[in-house]
């Protein structure tokens, strides 16, 4: 029997208020839809706010030889050709328009001498391509989108967590959740739902991600019957802080290397010469992360187990102007002045290339009426994402998801939500209050993070992954028994108990996919299978929910049309 809940109705419900969710909301509003945006935090605090380096878009303001084709080629190369080629094409073609649009809504990027948007170099990008504002591009983007959405009039449900999608005859009809502030229940009726909940980094202890990144959206979609794809590809950003312990994993923007930063080991050797002499520090993230990891593992790491990243050869004023957050972050949190000496950096869990499988043009998942955009969706980045391609991804596919969701909403009747599903969702949500055990959700979370870091990290083996499975099984049963103290009023222990379920689901999907892919490609490195495998070059791992059991399938990679293939493969 359900207790009381409030009910809200929208044509389009958007879960997540980062760049993708807000851009989707703006587009759906422009189509005349009634739009609700639900977010776990306050508006404007989503993870997009932490994006630093810039938005990749071939504006050709600095390097006139650039264009959508070189951007497309770099993206495909960076993803080791596992990308959905059509998404990569759309992304490269539409990104410049999406950036210009931001400025028309009030954003302000750094300028060239001629007054156009300035672009900087970044790893894996052949040309200077990243539109930026110092090293706080994400804040500029989220504030602009937030203000635009408020102006157009969306309804925002802040500090509200969705725990289940409601379905009817195979299509989505709504969502169930609770207000974090007071623990009261809420049901949304919606004709279309867009998942824009970002990634999964909080399953690892050393991560650049905020607490929100627990894989909620992927889990919601998976439970509603949608397919997940490419989940083995988890990006470890090469440069996170390694010292002091409290800030371990905190991101050090790639813009440091984009602006000329140099990596050295403890012997002063510029080690990227060994691993990628052509691109050096601006190699792709998978390569740089593995290089730092290898240097440390082979005994050439710094005092706190990282590498040195040095930008102090540039004028101090230039560093403070182009990398202001990094300057303050190191000065205040690590007592290091980056204009005078090197930073210590090491790999940190940063991004997942995998996610909800979507159709390229519309961002629709394999469940009718359910759309996904941004980090929660899979396809664009293949096996490894280039820096700067995420912010542009949010804009390009956020817009497409909002557009398609609004159009879909016009074609379906009003939604009916199932009382039985609501009752089951409520039972599950409130269970931790009546669980008799003393299992702490915080303890389960710590142990999950330890498992993922040591067994499903940068380098993987069959033995480790099998061990991880056994551990995950135990953690799942512990999480199901976790109990919480206190009331339903803003209770973080309770919130975590729910987030744990999502983290465990996506962790299992990562481990299952990683075990199956017996090759190394992009961000997925198998010590026991260190080479590319031409058979796996043509396959995606797909994860589906089959009657409550997580099941893996394989699906062929879409072939590029011959003209694009010829262009991409040309030296």
């Amino acid at each position, binding site marked *: 029997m359900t207790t009381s809940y409030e009910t809200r109705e929208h044509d389009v419900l958007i879960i997540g208020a980062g760049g993708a969710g807000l851009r989707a909301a703006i587009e759906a509003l422009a189509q005349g839809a009634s739009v609700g945006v639900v977010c776990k*935090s*306050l*508006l*404007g*605090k*989503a*993870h997009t*706010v*932490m994006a630093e380096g810039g938005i990749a878009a071939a504006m050709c303001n600095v390097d006139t030889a650039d264009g959508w084709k070189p951007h497309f080629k770099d993206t495909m190369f960076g993803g080791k050709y596992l990308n959905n080629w059509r998404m990569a094409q759309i992304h490269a073609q539409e990104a410049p328009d999406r950036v*210009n649009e931001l*400025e*028309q*809504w*009030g954003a*302000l*990027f*750094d*300028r060239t001498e*001629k*007054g156009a948007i300035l672009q900087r170099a970044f790893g894996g990008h052949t040309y200077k391509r990243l539109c930026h*504002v*110092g090293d*706080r591009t*994400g*804040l500029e983007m989220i*504030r602009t989108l937030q*203000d*635009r959405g*408020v*102006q157009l009039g969306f309804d925002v449900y*802040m500090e509200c967590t969705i725990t289940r999608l409601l379905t009817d005859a195979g299509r989505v009809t709504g969502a169930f959740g609770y207000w974090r*502030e007071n623990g009261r229940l809420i049901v949304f009726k919606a004709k279309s739902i867009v998942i824009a909940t970002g990634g999964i980094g909080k399953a690892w202890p050393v991560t650049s991600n*905020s*607490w*929100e990144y627990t894989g909620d959206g992927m889990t919601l979609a998976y439970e509603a019957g949608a397919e997940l794809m490419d989940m083995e590809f988890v990006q470890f950003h090469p440069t996170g802080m390694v*010292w*002091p*312990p*409290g*800030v371990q994993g905190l991101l050090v923007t790639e813009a440091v290397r984009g602006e000329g930063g140099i990596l050295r080991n403890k012997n002063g050797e510029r080690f990227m010469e060994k691993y990628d002499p052509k691109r050096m520090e601006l190699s792709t993230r998978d390569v740089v992360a593995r290089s730092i990891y290898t240097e440390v593992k082979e005994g050439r790491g710094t005092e706190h187990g990282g590498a040195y990243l040095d930008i102090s050869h540039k004028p101090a004023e230039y560093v403070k102007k182009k990398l202001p*957050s990094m300057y303050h*972050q190191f000065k*205040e*949190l*690590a*007592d290091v002045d980056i204009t005078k000496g090197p930073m210590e950096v090491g790999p940190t869990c940063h991004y997942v290339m995998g996610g909800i499988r979507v159709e390229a043009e519309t961002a629709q998942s394999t469940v009718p009426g359910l759309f996904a955009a941004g980090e929660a969706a899979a396809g664009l980045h293949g096996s490894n994402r280039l820096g700067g391609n995420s912010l542009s991804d949010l804009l390009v596919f956020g817009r497409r998801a909002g557009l398609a969701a609004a159009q879909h909403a016009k074609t379906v009747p009003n939604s009916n939500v199932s009382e039985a599903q609501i009752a089951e969702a409520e039972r599950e949500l409130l269970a931790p209050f009546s669980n008799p055990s003393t299992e702490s*959700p*915080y*303890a389960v979370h*710590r142990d999950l993070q330890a498992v993922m870091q040591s067994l499903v990290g940068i380098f993987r083996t069959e033995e480790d992954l099998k061990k991880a499975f056994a551990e995950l099984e135990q953690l799942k049963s512990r999480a199901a028994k976790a109990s*919480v*103290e*206190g*009331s339903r*009023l*803003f*209770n*973080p*222990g*309770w919130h975590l108990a729910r987030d744990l379920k999502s983290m465990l689901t996506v962790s299992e999907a990562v481990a299952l996919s990683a075990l199956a892919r017996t090759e190394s490609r992009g961000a997925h490195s198998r010590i026991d299978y260190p080479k590319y495998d031409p058979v796996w070059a043509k396959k995606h791992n797909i994860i589906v929910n089959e009657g409550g059991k997580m099941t893996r399938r394989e699906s062929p990679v879409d072939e590029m049309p011959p003209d694009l293939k010829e262009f991409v493969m040309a030296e």
Partner: protein
Amino acid sequence: MPDATLRISRGEGPTGGETVDYKVPIAPGMVVLDALHYIQGHQAPDLAVRWNCKAAKCGSCSAEVNGRPRLTCKTRVDSLPMDEPIVVMPMKSFPRIKDLVTDVSWNYAVNKKIPPFQPKPGVEWKISQLDVDRVQEFRKCIECFLCQNVCHVLREHDAKPSFAGPRFFVRVAGLEMHPLDSANRAPLLKNEMGLGLCNITKCCTEVCPEDIHITDNAIIPLKERVVDQFYDPITMLFRKVFGG
């Protein structure tokens, strides 16, 4: 290293509450938010704390540490005296929901009233870096609301319906000084946002974690704009004679 004692305000709802002491083992470089997380993970799982990025970029973890409004993610424990408890209280100017979490929804309601960026029609989109730099100072704001919390017009006089607070003067300054904007927000500043109530004590500037010169660079120039439009003696005389 020795333990630190954190004396944390706990309670539900806008009134009441008590302080509770917790002992936390200190690690090198630890910030107050780390200590709060330690308490959640080991002693008080229902301790309510709002936070997101833990990197001073989102402005969620605002509180009053030893009486000073701060981001707890940026406040090093080793910067505080260790021979006495570290006192952590919620922001005083907003009603408490629970423990260190306050209801800041009023800020979002104020924000809605501000007319958005309105580009001049048909303008060529060329902007100099100098103009970008001027406006970017205001766009750095991470909406931690520490300036709102410390401003005495809000804190002591609770003038919320008639005064928008420093955060929103910063937002308006960013719009008004955008080189391509064409809207006029001076009447709003004077009539609805209560700009005149600010008597430039600069408390907001002092607590801003982004080092925005709120008073000097945002509020005073906006006051000048309002004066130019409404209190210029020649214009006033003109109005008096010809009406309008």
